[in-house]
């Protein structure tokens, strides 16, 4: 272990340099004296003796140096020396230091921010034990690659599979919670037994649901969230066994779930109940699509492919056993992380690339600043070179300065970057999955450190190499101007690079903005302005009411809300809600043979609404009539279809008057009475590419009794005038007059639903726009700085020109022309870069080509104008030079 001892000894020597030096000097002095004394004894004079002693010793200085090198860690000492010197240099130039550090901090901060997002969303594993074993389970159906699983199918999947340790099933719901203070609508989930065990999450207290509770008829139990436990029960330790009243029914609390469950949907819920506690008459129907989705944990060592093969066997057997419901139904097995993260990777990669460019630009900017400054430091380096400093030594010194600047910038940027990211994600929470997991961790820190060092090396290296190459003699002779000629060229190249990068970013942002504008111009098929979506939970006392009473209650609700001040139209909406809720049904056309199984039926998006719906949504009525108040439980069943439906199922015919069989409505026949415009159910950008687009409208009042029986709450769309807040207040007032147990929840405007559907696109546009603005600003500062520097270097030349008769306007033109030359070169290079790079963001664009000439032209024009504007100040300064003064300057 010699080397350990040696290292320790060398390290300890570093802290006591001065004492050790004195010690060495003492020792050497004593050596010389011993030697001299011996010589004196041999009869030499004191002087001769001393010089003989020195001769025998060899070079005292060399030995001392060798000794010191041997004693300490020379590279560390040199580094410390460089650092001390660098700090002094930076301290004496506070302006330069501040500008450099700030410029770099912007670049590094942006990168840290975007990387922390990439890290939180894409790189970090899900925050559960053995997250790689977790998969998302769905039914693959003809129209839905990841459709919902029916409860009976799930129970069979769980029983029959051989590759899963466990499986769980969930469906969102809401309950009206009464009995603990004010009545309240709480977000909830129906869960299968062992759901949390699949994730590896243990309840904070109590237990989760048992397999017995997966069966209908089990006693009603519930779990509540830590949040609800604190809010409604004052965090009492005696919570287990307490009752909670949900939709008028008492549930016994058996467990409390921990806060910070990082699973989308479930994480914001307050109440969980076993699936059979859902009073839904078709829960046990094998063909029903009720919005259940599953998760599973693979057995250790089992791959997703093996699990898929296993589930293929399971679903094939089920299809054989239940051909009517399960033919064509497969199981979709996907890594859970992939399902949660979705297709955000392109979007994040584009952002990362963009912000990387901003950093590159910042580096180039600082490099040109360094370059300009190094010209004035030319004398300093010349003196050092003349005194024997090697080129490597000078480069090392300059790099130390750059690295110091880079590190300072990184340190300054870190905290605002993380805060900024948090703030941005708070404003647009719909933009990203796993947004709440974005934060600072070791990987982000390492990344920031790495790019700080990289940036330091990058912007420092070129000027360092350039400066150190300068010929000391020439530099000393003309006062530090030796390197100017080639400096001009390098600075010009820098400006061109900066402008090119700015142009690439500007085009990216321009394309996204144009996409967004295009998208806003797309009509959703209805008028979203002034429409609000609310939920109303009906009084629990209604649970035992007859069908007639329920219908009467719903009519009254409709009527009362329609007459509330500020409300102009009202409709219940029980099926799909545009961009906010999916629902589908199947039917067969009267006169054609009835398909043998469900999957050969025709599929359709169904809206179950009231006659007021057309006025609420302002959907154009194309032909025939819409549902009318007379279409009720006593009259023949009618429906209204959209034009996609009409064209798809009755091409070249008149759809009005045709009849179809509504399978889930007890296979009743309904007649088409009208055709309305298509509504973009799947969002403005995605709707056209979906396979399931046909839509029909049924009247709430014509729904069969077993459908009405489960009604605990109703979703409504209302058109209002004035402000949303006032409209909601007025509704709440009316609501309170009707019943104190009746709760209004939700209250999201259709416009905000629409803009949420574009949240990710807006997030990308805002960020890319911000980066582009930053890039243009940096490029402007860069071109301004370089032009100002060049003008200051050419003062004398300008003086001579003016003395020889050049006009001020000529001087102005000269400077502007050289600026314009740079701008054009930069824009040219930028166009090439933009065309090459914007192709990669194709999937983020909407109806805009990545090489959209209009965007490119605008961006180029903008950049040239901005670049020239940045040249005007230096140009005017050049034009205002007094020739006599300029000539006399040196």
């Amino acid at each position, binding site marked *: 272990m*010699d080397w350990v*001892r*040696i290292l320790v*000894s*060398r390290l300890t020597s570093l802290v006591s340099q001065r004492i050790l030096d004195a*010690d*060495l000097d*003492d*020792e*050497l002095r*004593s*050596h010389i*004296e*011993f*030697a001299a*004394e*011996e010589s004196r004894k041999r009869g030499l004079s004191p002087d001769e003796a001393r010089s003989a002693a020195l001769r*025998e*010793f*060899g*070079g*005292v200085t*060399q*030995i001392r140096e*060798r*000794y010191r090198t*041997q*004693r300490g860690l020379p590279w560390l000492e040199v580094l410390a020396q460089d650092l001390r010197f660098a700090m002094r240099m930076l301290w004496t130039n506070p302006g330069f230091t501040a500008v450099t550090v700030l410029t770099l901090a912007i670049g590094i901060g942006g990168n840290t921010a975007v990387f922390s997002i990439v890290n939180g969303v894409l790189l970090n594993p899900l925050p559960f034990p053995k997250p790689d074993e977790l998969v998302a389970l769905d039914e693959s159906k003809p129209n839905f690659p990841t459709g919902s699983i029916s409860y009976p199918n799930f129970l069979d999947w769980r029983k029959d599979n051989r590759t899963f340790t466990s499986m769980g099933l969930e469906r969102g719901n809401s309950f009206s919670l009464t009995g603990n203070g004010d009545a309240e609508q709480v977000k909830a989930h129906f869960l299968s037994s062992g759901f949390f065990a699949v994730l590896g999450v243990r309840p904070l207290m109590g237990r989760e649901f048992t397999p017995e509770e997966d069966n209908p008829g089990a006693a009603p139990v519930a779990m509540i969230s830590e949040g609800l436990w604190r809010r409604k029960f004052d965090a009492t330790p005696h919570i287990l066994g307490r009752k909670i009243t949900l939709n008028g029914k008492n549930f016994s609390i058996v467990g409390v779930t921990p806060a910070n469950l990082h699973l989308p949907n479930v994480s914001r819920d307050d109440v969980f109940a076993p699936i059979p506690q859902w009073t839904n008459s078709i829960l046990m129907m094998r063909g029903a699509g009720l919005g259940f989705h599953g998760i599973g944990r693979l057995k250790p060592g089992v791959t997703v492919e093996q699990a898929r093969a296993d589930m293929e066997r399971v679903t094939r057997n089920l299809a054989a056993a239940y051909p009517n419901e399960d033919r064509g139904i497969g199981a979709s097995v996907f890594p859970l992380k992939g399902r949660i993260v979705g297709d955000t990777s392109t979007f994040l990669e584009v952002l990362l690339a963009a912000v990387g460019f901003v950093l590159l630009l910042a580096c180039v900017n600082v490099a040109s600043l360094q370059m300009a400054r190094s010209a004035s430091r030319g004398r300093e380096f010349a003196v050092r070179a003349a005194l024997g400093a090697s080129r490597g030594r000078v480069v090392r010194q300059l790099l130390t300065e750059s690295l110091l600047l880079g590190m300072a910038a990184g340190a300054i940027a870190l905290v605002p970057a993380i805060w900024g990211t948090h703030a941005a994600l708070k404003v647009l929470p719909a933009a990203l999955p796993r947004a709440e997991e974005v934060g600072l961790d070791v990987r982000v820190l390492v990344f920031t450190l790495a790019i700080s060092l990289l940036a330091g090396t990058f912007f420092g290296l070129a000027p360092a190499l350039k400066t150190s190459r300068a010929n000391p003699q020439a530099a000393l002779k003309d006062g530090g101007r030796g390197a100017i000629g080639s400096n001009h060229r390098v600075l010009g190249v820098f400006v061109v690079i900066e402008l090119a990068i700015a142009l690439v970013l500007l085009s990216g942002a321009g394309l996204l903005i144009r996409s967004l504008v295009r998208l806003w111009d797309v009509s959703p098929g209805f008028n979203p302005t002034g429409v609000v979506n609310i939920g109303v939970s009906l009084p629990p006392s209604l649970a035992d009411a007859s069908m007639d009473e329920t219908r009467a209650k719903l009519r009254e609700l409709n009527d009362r809300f329609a007459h509330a001040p500020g409300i102009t139209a009202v409709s219940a909406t029980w099926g799909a809600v545009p961009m906010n809720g999916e629902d589908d049904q199947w039917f067969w056309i009267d006169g054609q043979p009835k398909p043998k199984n469900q999957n050969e039926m025709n599929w359709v998006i169904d809206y179950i609404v009231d006659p007021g719906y057309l006025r609420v949504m302002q959907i154009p009525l194309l032909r025939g009539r819409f549902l009318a108040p007379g279409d009720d439980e006593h009259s023949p069943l009618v429906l209204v279809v959209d034009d996609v439906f009409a064209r798809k199922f009755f091409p070249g015919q008149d759809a009005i008057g045709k009849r179809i069989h509504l399978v889930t409505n007890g296979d009743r026949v309904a007649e088409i009475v009208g055709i309305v415009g298509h509504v973009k159910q799947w969002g403005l950008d995605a709707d056209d590419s979906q396979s399931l687009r046909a839509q029909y409208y049924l009247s709430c009042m014509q729904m069969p009794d077993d459908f009405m029986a489960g009604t605990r709450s109703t979703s409504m769309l209302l058109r209002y005038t004035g402000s949303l807040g006032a409209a909601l207040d007025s509704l709440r007032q009316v609501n309170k007059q009707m019943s104190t147990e009746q709760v209004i929840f939700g209250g999201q405007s259709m416009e905000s639903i629409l803009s949420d559907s574009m949240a990710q696109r807006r997030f990308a546009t805002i960020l890319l726009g911000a980066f582009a603005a930053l890039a243009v600003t940096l490029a402007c500062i860069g071109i301004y700085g370089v032009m100002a520097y060049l003008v200051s270097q050419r003062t004398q030349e300008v003086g001579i020109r003016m003395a020889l008769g050049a006009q001020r306007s000529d001087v102005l033109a000269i400077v502007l022309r050289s600026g314009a030359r740079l701008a054009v070169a930069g824009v040219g290079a930028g166009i090439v870069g933009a065309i090459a790079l914007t192709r990669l963001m194709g999937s983020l664009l909407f109806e805009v080509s990545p090489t959209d000439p209009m965007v490119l032209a605008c961006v180029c024009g903008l950049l040239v104008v901005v670049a020239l504007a940045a040249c005007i100040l230096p140009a005017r300064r050049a034009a205002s030079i007094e020739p006599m003064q300029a000539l006399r300057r040196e």
Partner: protein
Amino acid sequence: MGEDRSDVLQGTLDLMVLKTLETMGPQHGYGIARRIEQVSGDSLRLNQGTIYPALLRLQQRGWIKAEWGVSEANRRAKYYSLSRIGRKHIQEEAKNWTRVAATMARFLSASS
């Protein structure tokens, strides 16, 4: 840095120092240098200063210790002495060196 004619192979000088300390007991730098010169006769004219990096190297390895003391002539000097580890290593180093020297001698006589 072998530019000095009187520099000797690093390991050689180290072993000479160790051997000197073993036979003479605690000794200051000048004493060690003189002793090496005397023992080797005219064949080695040492630049005496080179002894100091060697002494430091041995100290860093923990083979020798140093301590300020007073000479017979009442002069302050730094005295070096063998440590326990150093004593152990001498035998080993000496054996190594003898082997190398013997090999070298055999090699030279064989090729002449």
